[in-house]
């Protein structure tokens, strides 16, 4: 698999699986307005994944479409981080997971808007405004949960304790990343890692939440080694094209 394709596919898969998980809340949000707000966010992220998959398919250059990549790959071929595939048993999980993703992506896509890959730079530039709003929405929910009731604080803290071990993988750099950095396609996470972590730490501190210490960080998603949750997500997401081979929409 060539590095350029792999780099784009990882970005696309992170967005696609993130959006698919968020879409599970559609129609089940805590109240109407928040249901619409989260669905709106999911739609932005799904749109980004489509653009990235289209571009990835073009770079791969063997005639596949974005749909082929989304619906006809198996679990081991998905290159998203483990964080995005984690289940969200309550709304605090959804918010904590999403605020981590939003804050990271905001930094990441700002860097990617300078990419020498013009299409990627364009997608990134468009995404910055969207993610800026997503972060505003999710971070204000972190404040509300953290500073709300004893129960809301505890639920947010539980989610943070559970999900923090999946954040290490976001900052990992392997040979594909190094290739992308060297060729000006991708960016080095080191450029913003410290400021990203400080930003999150400050947000959680002001919300009376604590980032767990000495966490053993999970890894593997970027290379197709996933938690058991991804299989269920894909089974649901890929149902239609697998049950009706050749279906068009």
């Amino acid at each position, binding site marked *: 698999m060539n590095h350029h394709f792999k780099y784009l596919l990882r970005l696309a898969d992170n967005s696609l699986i993130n959006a698919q998980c968020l879409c599970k809340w559609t129609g089940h949000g805590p*109240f109407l307005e928040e249901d619409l*707000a989260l669905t709106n966010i999911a739609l932005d992220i799904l749109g980004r994944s489509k653009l990235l998959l289209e571009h990835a398919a073009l770079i791969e250059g063997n005639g596949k479409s974005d749909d082929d990549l989304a619906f006809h790959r198996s679990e081991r071929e998905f290159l998203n981080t483990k964080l995005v595939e984690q289940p969200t048993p309550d709304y605090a999980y959804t918010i904590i997971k999403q605020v981590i993703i939003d804050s990271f992506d905001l930094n990441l896509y700002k860097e990617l808007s300078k990419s020498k890959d013009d299409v990627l730079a364009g997608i990134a530039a468009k995404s910055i405004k969207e993610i800026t709003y997503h972060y505003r929405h999710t971070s204000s929910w972190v404040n509300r949960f953290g500073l709300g009731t004893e129960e809301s604080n505890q639920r947010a803290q539980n989610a943070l304790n559970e999900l923090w071990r999946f954040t290490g993988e976001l900052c990992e750099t392997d040979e594909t990343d190094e290739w992308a950095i060297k060729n000006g396609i991708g960016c080095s996470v080191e450029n913003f890692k410290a400021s990203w972590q400080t930003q999150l730490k400050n947000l959680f501190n002001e919300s009376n939440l604590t980032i767990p210490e000495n966490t053993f960080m999970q890894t593997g998603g970027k290379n197709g080694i996933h938690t058991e949750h991804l299989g269920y997500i894909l089974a649901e997401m890929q149902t239609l094209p697998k049950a009706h081979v050749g279906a068009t929409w």
Partner: protein
Amino acid sequence: MSDSQGPMWEVFVQKKAGQPFVHCGNLHAFDKEMALQNARDLYTRRMEGVALWVVKSEHIVASSPEDQGSFFEPANDKIFRHPTFYQVPDIIKHM
């Protein structure tokens, strides 16, 4: 508050800079920031505006339907309040 969705807020959207804010509907929210964000998601998704006001519905003072007669009907027979009896000189443009 009879449900768990928070108090009602009224939403006003400004279509373009300089234009008045026009009432477009209402929503539920628990605080100001949430009200503003919900207004953005509910009422400006399709380029409806460039600025938003939200105000708690309870802060709106409204006339009641019973007030209609005493408030508004006395204006019906006072056509002299309309500036239709004046000749506008030709040199005045843009009136």
